[in-house]
Structure formats: structure tokens, C-alpha cells
């Protein structure tokens, strides 16, 4: 019997493809945001709001990840420059998008004509935190009806986020959500994260979010 030292990251296969994706995106100057949240927190609504605001300023493509259906892709179809729907139902893993799925979706996007790619991940606060896709920024959405304890229950996804969005602010009078406590938990886990309070329903706060996105795209463009 012989012992072999290995010391190899089990997620390396995903990470290798993710960095290949990022190289391709950088080559075509496509800034990419991975949007994560639990189901129903407002990923599609945020994408629709962002598309509406950035129309005429940036060419935006969207990758929609869902276990099944093309409902979300149909919703964003008319506003985005390109949309690719990924259904994970028949894939070995259905709980998160993975770098290989993005690699193949990128083949269907005219990257030369795109400035910004929004990736809507599968609704889940656990698995997507383990798989990088090649994105430049990671965004997590929490919505008021979910409760203010999500950063405490699912810390990893908040630790790795570049921005955290509190959505459905219009429901504040109707739910017990302690904004200060939520922000305090996020700050404890991740002092660098930018926090946005907004409502995709009333558009309150969307302007500030879109300015941040524009700023990120511009900063990234000048770096290259």
C-alpha cells in the first residue's frame, strides 16, 4: 500500500472554468453580476427595473437560471439585448448555477455588443455561495417578508457578497423587519458590502442601485 499526498481543492474544477469565463468576459469588456437570493425575493424584478433604467445607456444581456420553465426569460426578453435561459432540472445539480453552465450559455450571447451581463442564479441561499461563475460582482437580495435573520442563518452568501439589497421596502409598515438589526448583521459579517434599500414595486431606491451598477461598469472598463 502506498500513500499519495494530494491536497487538491474539490471545487477546483468549477473554479478553473469560472476563471476561464472571466477571461472571456474581460476580453469582450462585459461586466458581469451574479444575482443571488431565496426564491421570490425579487431577482427578476430587480433585473427588469435595472433593464428599464439602463436602457439606452448600456447594452445588457441576461442569463436566467431556474430549475424549470422559461417564465423569467420571457419576462425580460423584450428589454434585454440577449437572454439565455438555463434550466437545471435535468442537470446533475439543480440547486445552483455552475461555471460550466455559464460557459455554454456565453456561446449564445453576442459578447461584442454587450456591456453588462446580469446572471440570475437559482433561488437558494446555500448552494450558490459555493460556486463562482466568473462574475465580477456578487449581489445578494433579501426581502422584508423573509425576516431580518437571514444573514445569521445563511452567513456564507453574505460574507462573499459585494452588495446586499433589501427589497420590498414598500412592505415595511406591514411586516416585522428590523432594518437596523439586519444591517448590523451584514456589517458584522462583511463590512465591505454595499447595502441598498429599495422597492422594485415602487422603484424607490432603484436610482441609487443603478448608479452603483453604472459606476462599477465604468470603473471596470477603465481598469482594462
Amino acid at each position: 500500500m502506498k500513500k499519495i499526498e494530494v491536497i487538491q481543492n474539490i471545487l477546483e474544477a468549477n473554479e478553473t472554468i469560472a476563471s476561464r469565463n472571466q477571461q472571456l468576459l474581460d476580453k469582450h469588456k462585459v461586466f458581469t453580476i451574479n444575482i443571488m437570493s431565496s426564491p421570490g425575493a425579487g431577482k427578476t424584478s430587480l433585473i427588469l427595473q435595472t433593464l428599464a433604467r439602463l436602457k439606452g445607456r448600456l447594452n445588457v444581456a441576461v442569463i436566467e437560471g431556474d430549475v424549470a420553465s422559461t417564465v423569467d426569460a420571457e419576462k425580460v426578453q423584450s428589454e434585454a439585448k440577449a437572454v439565455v435561459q438555463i434550466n437545471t432540472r435535468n442537470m446533475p445539480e439543480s440547486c445552483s448555477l455552475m461555471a460550466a453552465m455559464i460557459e455554454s450559455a456565453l456561446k449564445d450571447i453576442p459578447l461584442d455588443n454587450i456591456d453588462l451581463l446580469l446572471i440570475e442564479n437559482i433561488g437558494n441561499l446555500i448552494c450558490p455561495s459555493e460556486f463562482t461563475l466568473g462574475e465580477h460582482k456578487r449581489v445578494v437580495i433579501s426581502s422584508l417578508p423573509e425576516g431580518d435573520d437571514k444573514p445569521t442563518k445563511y452567513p456564507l452568501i453574505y460574507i462573499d457578497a459585494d452588495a446586499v439589497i433589501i427589497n420590498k421596502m414598500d412592505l415595511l409598515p406591514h411586516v416585522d423587519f428590523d432594518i437596523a438589526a439586519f444591517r448590523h448583521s451584514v456589517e458584522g459579517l462583511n463590512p465591505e458590502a454595499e447595502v441598498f434599500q429599495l422597492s422594485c414595486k415602487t422603484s424607490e431606491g432603484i436610482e441609487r442601485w443603478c448608479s452603483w451598477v453604472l459606476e462599477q461598469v465604468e470603473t471596470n472598463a477603465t481598469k482594462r
Partner: protein
Amino acid sequence: MHEFGITENIMNIALAKAGEAQANKVIRINLVIGEMSGFVPDCIQFYFDSLSKDTIAQGAALHFESVPAQLRCRNCATIFSPEDTLWACPKCRGQSVEISKGRELYIESMEVE
């Protein structure tokens, strides 16, 4: 929740390393899994038994070394173990913390013949 893909990766790495070592059989794979990584050993074992059929890794024992979560307080640098979901520093009660251990996920070594 996504142990299938992880197990496929473990299989691929193990078979590649065994091939490099010109081994005929994989006896044991030693894995290091952080408590916070969210992977369930029983689930990995289940998929492994099925995926390894008719390969030189069939019947290999998977050994899981679990690394307990360890946090570091950003205020006073105290290293501590979190109690359940409460991530407050036992010394200064600060809640600004970073994970120093517990997110590991790698193959440490293998035994082959």
C-alpha cells in the same frame, strides 16, 4: 444539497492521481471538510459508492476529517468557536467577525496499491 457534483469531482481527482501513481486500486481517500462548507459526508459516500462502480476506486473507504468552524473577532482579534448561530465575540461581544477555519473542502491524501 449539491453532493453529486462534488462527488464526481472527488472521483475525477482520485482516478487521475491513482493513474499518475500507476496504482491498480484505490483503498482509501482522506477528505478534509469544513463544518461551514455544508456538505454531508453520508451523502457523498452514497454517491461515491454508485459512481465508483467498475472503476479502480470501487470499494474505497472515504475518510472525512471535519474542521470545526473558527471565527476571528475584527475588533479584538480573539479567535473563538461560534455557538450555534450566535456569532458574537466572547471577549468584547463584538459581532464583526470573519471565518478563519471551517470552509475547507479538499482531498488531503489517498492510499493506493
